[in-house]
């Protein structure tokens, strides 16, 4: 499709980074190889600027992004990625659609696009955020000064979700990164990419935790485990796709009973200390889910109904439980000596398994051995929200770049 500057300039798009002219010429930008030195320099400079910014210090998520894209970390990612890879170049233009509820996700998504060697068009969520303000401000500053060579490669914008604009932007793109609910992902997919375009759809998922009862009983650092678990769950109202909603206990019945009391007791104390409060609507929603689990999915016991920590015990898990989970502090619990009792929920819905005192390899082996359709990611407790370039089982760098074969 032809994208003449005048017609793009006439569209109701507001630009946080870049402008209509840059957008209309973005397809002409030449791709870079993945992890090009200049890309690393830009992101490392952004990291440095954010770490120096006083306003950013008060925002743990912005700090986490700055930490993620510091030079040493990028070099490390590069080392891991480039080992054994052939010659590659970015596909061209990648377009990203990011949601509002995780305000700095756009920064990670954009970075992945740049690191793959592509130019980036990114549509921000309707709702603005201070995080966005801050990151865009620093990025703009860099593009206006020492990184002017990257200025024609990055457009961060927002518009009223008009389909005609989405159609046009998608038609200009070679790869598309979609974050959101199934509904919003499918919605955007209605706008066509060019025939060879590739989609990286990151739609709704849910996650589980596997906790060793023995570990909980034996550790002298249960407070740290609880804090890590809090960060995995309550920090995002347990509403991130990687936040565990099912907690599977490994151990004997006796050990599990004791470990449960200890662990949840610690969590309750922590919730009190942090003053975590559930909005009224969520509180009702949680009770509703818990009761449906009892009526239809074999839940035997509901504990803490009406509080910020509601637990539902289900002796035998089934895939249906995923349909009745709720955010904001509802945990479905089950138990077994081994992983067999978890098998039925490690389906396409399940994204991340987070572990406490259980070897990650054990779970990886289990997934492979039983050829399960779910579980893309196994991380220790406290790391479920860490962004990684391989997400939902998709290597984002690979997906947004191409290999050139032949020659030496």
């Amino acid at each position, binding site marked *: 499709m032809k994208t003449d500057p005048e017609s793009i300039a006439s569209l109701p798009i507001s630009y946080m980074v870049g402008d209509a002219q840059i957008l209309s010429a973005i397809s002409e930008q030449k791709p870079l190889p993945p992890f090009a030195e200049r890309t690393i320099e830009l992101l490392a400079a952004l990291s440095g600027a954010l770490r120096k910014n006083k306003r950013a210090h008060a925002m743990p998520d912005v700090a986490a992004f700055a930490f993620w894209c510091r030079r040493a970390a990028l070099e490390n990612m590069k080392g891991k990625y480039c080992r054994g890879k052939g010659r590659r170049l970015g596909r061209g233009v990648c377009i990203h659609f990011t949601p509002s509820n995780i305000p700095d996700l756009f920064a990670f998504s954009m970075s992945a696009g740049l690191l793959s060697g592509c130019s980036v068009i990114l549509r921000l969520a309707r709702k603005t955020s201070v995080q966005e303000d801050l990151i865009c401000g620093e990025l703009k500053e860099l593009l206006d000064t020492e990184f002017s060579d990257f200025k024609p490669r990055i457009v961060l914008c927002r518009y009223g979700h008009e389909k005609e604009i989405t159609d046009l932007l998608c038609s200009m793109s070679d790869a598309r990164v979609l974050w959101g609910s199934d509904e919003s992902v499918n919605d955007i997919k209605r706008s066509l990419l060019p025939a060879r375009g590739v989609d990286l759809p990151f739609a709704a998922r849910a996650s589980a935790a596997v906790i060793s009862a023995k570990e909980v009983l034996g550790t002298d650092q249960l407070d740290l485990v609880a804090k890590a678990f809090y960060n995995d769950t309550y920090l995002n109202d347990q509403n991130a796709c990687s936040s565990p909603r099912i907690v599977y206990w490994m151990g004997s019945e006796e050990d599990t009973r004791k470990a449960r009391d200890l662990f949840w007791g610690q969590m309750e104390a922590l919730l009190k200390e942090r003053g975590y409060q559930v909005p009224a609507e969520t509180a*009702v929603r949680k009770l509703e889910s818990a009761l449906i689990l009892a*009526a239809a999915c074999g839940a035997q016991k509901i504990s803490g109904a009406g509080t910020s920590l509601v637990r539902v015990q289900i002796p035998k898990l089934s895939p249906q439980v995923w349909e009745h989970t709720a955010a904001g502090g509802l945990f479905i619990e089950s138990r077994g000596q081994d992983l067999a009792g978890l098998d039925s929920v490690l389906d396409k819905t399940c994204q991340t398994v987070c572990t406490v005192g259980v070897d990650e390899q054990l779970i990886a082996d289990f997934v492979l051995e039983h050829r399960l359709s779910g579980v893309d990611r196994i991380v220790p407790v406290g790391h479920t929200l860490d962004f990684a370039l391989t997400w939902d089982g998709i290597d984002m760098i690979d997906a947004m770049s191409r290999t050139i074969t032949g020659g030496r």
Partner: protein
Amino acid sequence: MAGREFPFSMRKEEKDRYLTSELVKLTDYHREHCPAYRKMTDALGCDTRSVSHYSQLPYLPVSLFKQLRLSSLEGDEDFKTVTSSGTSGQQRSQIILDAQTRTDQQVALTRIGSDFLGKNRLPYLVIDCPATIKKRDHYSARTAGILGFSIFGAHRTFALKDDMSLDLEAVEDFLDKYKDKKFLIFGFTFMVWKYFCRELEERQIKLDCSKAVLLHGGGWKKLADQAVSKEEFARRLKNVCGVERVMDYYGMTEQTGSIYFECECGHLHCSDYSGIIFRRPEDFSVCDIGETGIIEVLSVLPKSYPGHILLTEDQGRLLGVDDCPCGRPGPYFEVFGRIKNAELRGCSDTYEDRS
């Protein structure tokens, strides 16, 4: 209960005893007859033998009736399913009613209504259009209201045409015949405001409804959004049509019959058929008088389905018990509308507004 002609007779102590005993009986009954209810209450650790006050009994979120079909009837009993789509055409509630429960609902509604409106049927002007009750596949809260309150009315007349414009001819004709004696006007709060009050104001028409009782319900949310207070609503209505008595009510399809009417002092009242509890969102403990909480509604009527104790998605507060100046004993309260739908953080679900 069936023996009591007077639906506002019990003071606190007697009421607490009566409600506790009736609701324990109903809880046991439904646990025996509705397997899903049994599973849910078992999971909550319900043991009615240890219950000393009805506030300790398990409550089901109203929204559950949109997800589960809950019936306490034997398979072959005769029943009718009433569905309601809340306000915005989302999933509908399914309420299973047999003849007995339906009759009990009618009796309760009639008795409570007559206490406020008198024993005689009143000429009935509906601020809605005829099409609302014709679309039976869309059995909305509006339809339920219009039909339900018909038992207090006669000579039903619709004030709006099907395109929602004011049918001035029909209204004037109605007033010519009935304006000199007491009559009933009913409509949803927002409909009364937008299509009656505002319309009369804009067209600078004055009507004589000074003898009318205007009954309205369905929530203030839309009006509150337009910053119209209860007082403003009443004042402006009086100005355009002279109506003196404006009366709100609170009720839901899931507990038809045991409705809460607003008295002459502007307070919503529990009748002998119903109870009300306000719960704190942080732990569902019971609020003090005057403290805002999530509304739980209790009714002694539901027999064919386990809807006797429900947690709503509305908020309100208890104003007092047994001491309303209107003289009716029992708890009286006010409703503020839906609980706030605070947006959660998280990534995968961009929450749709469910209200």
